[in-house]
């Protein structure tokens, strides 16, 4: 599904990714673990086509992302990718409904209201993000990402800004949707406990993968410690 080989990426002469190789299967739930500065968010940006690698190759569904031009990369993100960020990045001047439409309109999804209802925000369609709690805003992000029917969902510390109760709820939604839709999920986190919910755990340090392991029986969001 998604494969990368010998990825190298530097910023201002500082090497952030140093020969990273990874192979992710369709429908897999992968957690990329690592401390701050380990290169996990950069890897997420490169895998999703948000940034180009300086060296190596990223392959997704037969296409080599490093060979695509800007328009082709945009089309790749439009057709295949969903994003959820730690800081939500909702458009505060638009309603919940219109924020979700941002994803839905790209693929002509007219059933986006059902997704908003599925994340428990059916009564907040007309609300603006500043009127919502952090957990609710993150659920809007989930709805926005899912509304474009992505094949791969990328999450950058989605529970990082949330308290335990809300964090577990958000994680539970992600696991539930992953199971329902069979999408591939790649999540970056520094929380070791969250890694227990994934099928595959990739640990990074200083721009390299130092460990890859499989969880025989991934736990639910309510079974893990926090």
């Amino acid at each position, binding site marked *: 599904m998604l494969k990368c080989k010998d990825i190298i990426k530097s910023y201002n002469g500082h090497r952030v990714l140093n020969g990273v190789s990874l192979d992710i299967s369709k429908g897999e739930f992968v957690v990329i673990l690592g401390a701050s500065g380990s290169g996990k968010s950069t890897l997420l*940006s490169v895998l999703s086509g*948000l*940034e180009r690698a300086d060296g190596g190759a990223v392959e997704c569904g037969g296409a080599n992302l490093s060979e695509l031009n*800007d*328009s082709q990369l*945009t*089309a*790749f*993100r*439009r*057709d295949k*990718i969903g*994003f959820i*960020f730690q*800081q939500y*990045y909702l*458009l*505060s*001047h*638009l*309603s919940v*409904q*219109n924020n979700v*439409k*941002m*994803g*839905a*309109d*790209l693929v002509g999804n007219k059933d986006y209201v059902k997704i908003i209802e599925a994340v428990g925000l059916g009564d907040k369609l*007309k609300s*603006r*993000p*500043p*009127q919502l709690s952090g957990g609710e805003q993150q659920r809007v992000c989930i709805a926005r990402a899912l509304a*474009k029917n992505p094949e791969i969902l990328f999450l950058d510390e989605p529970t990082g800004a949330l308290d335990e109760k809300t964090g577990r709820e958000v994680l539970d939604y992600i696991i539930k949707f992953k199971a329902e839709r069979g999408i591939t999920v790649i999540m970056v986190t520094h929380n070791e406990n969250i890694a227990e919910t994934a099928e595959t755990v990739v640990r990074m340090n200083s721009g390299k993968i130092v460990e890859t392991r499989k969880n025989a029986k991934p736990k639910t969001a309510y079974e893990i410690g926090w």
Partner: protein
Amino acid sequence: MIISVKDGFKLIGVSVVFFCAAFVCTFMLSYYMDVVSLKDVVSDQFSALYDAQVAMSKFVSVLTGGVLVLIAVIMLVFYIKLYVDSHSKQLGVLKALGFSNAKLAAGFCAFGLSALVGCSLGFACGYSATPFIYESMTIEGMPEVAVTFHYELLLGIVVAPTALFAGIAYGFAYLKLKIPVMHLIKGKESKIRLSGREDKERDFLTEVFFKTLSSKKLLTFFFAFSAFCFSAMVQMGLSMGDLSSEIMGTVILVIGLVLAAVTAFMSVTSLVNANVKTVSLMKTFGYTARERFFSVLGGFIPFAFIGFGIGAAYQYGLLQLMVNVVFADVAEVPAYEFDMPVFFITLGVFVISYAALLALYSLKLSKISVKEVMLEN
């Protein structure tokens, strides 16, 4: 004090407007004051022409100076609002630490420096250009007008605007800083009107298009004003012909181009900077460069053309006014008709220049990445 030299550079647009206002007012008011002193030596034969010259110098300086000062006030207020919005976190933290509104607002007096720089340079250049302007306005048979330095002009064109604008900057900043500390720290997110009109049922791109337009109403004015300056002053400069000297036509044309360029760059830059988050998210989600461009900038383009149209009508009306009112009693004043070829040439140049400017910013928009938004937080 959190206002840096770099922030001062952003006010270059205000300085340029002040420069233009001071430049025109200096030589026109100088001319008015010097020519008034000749009243007793002008023969009856030239009295009508003399009166027309006096009226024109007063008319041009009051109209040009007045309009430009008004624009400078709007620009200054716009910049302060923009500054407070973009630095609300720092200002909120300073307020939380115990700085009073008055103390923080005092720092904004530095914005008055934009008036000092623009007016001083404008006054100096205007005064230097005075002999050439006088020469170009000399009419055969009329007594020669001697250039005199008027201290009251220095006071009225440089000192007074500087003090006035420092005061306006202080007063407006003081009002803006009356926002509660937490609202300042949370930034503009907290200022979204929560009880506003409900969103209409329209697709995402249309919604962004209208929301961007309605949230930046003042920018629609600057888009229109920029095109207005271009249209009115370029056409006036090119089609004044026999109504005035060549040098006056050139001055008007150059001022028009400078004002149009400064306000156009200021408007588009402010618009793009205010929409970095929207654009980067749209890019992340896979919206094309064209979709991003039209949803953010597209709504403002019609206003530029409206401004152009008003500018064309304005310059025609103004020149008709000069011919029919100011020079009404003067014999042999050339007829003035709307200059169609000049209109179409100006429109063509405007369309090409605008397309180039928008293409430049379209490129800038396409380079914005989600990393820029992440780094902001």
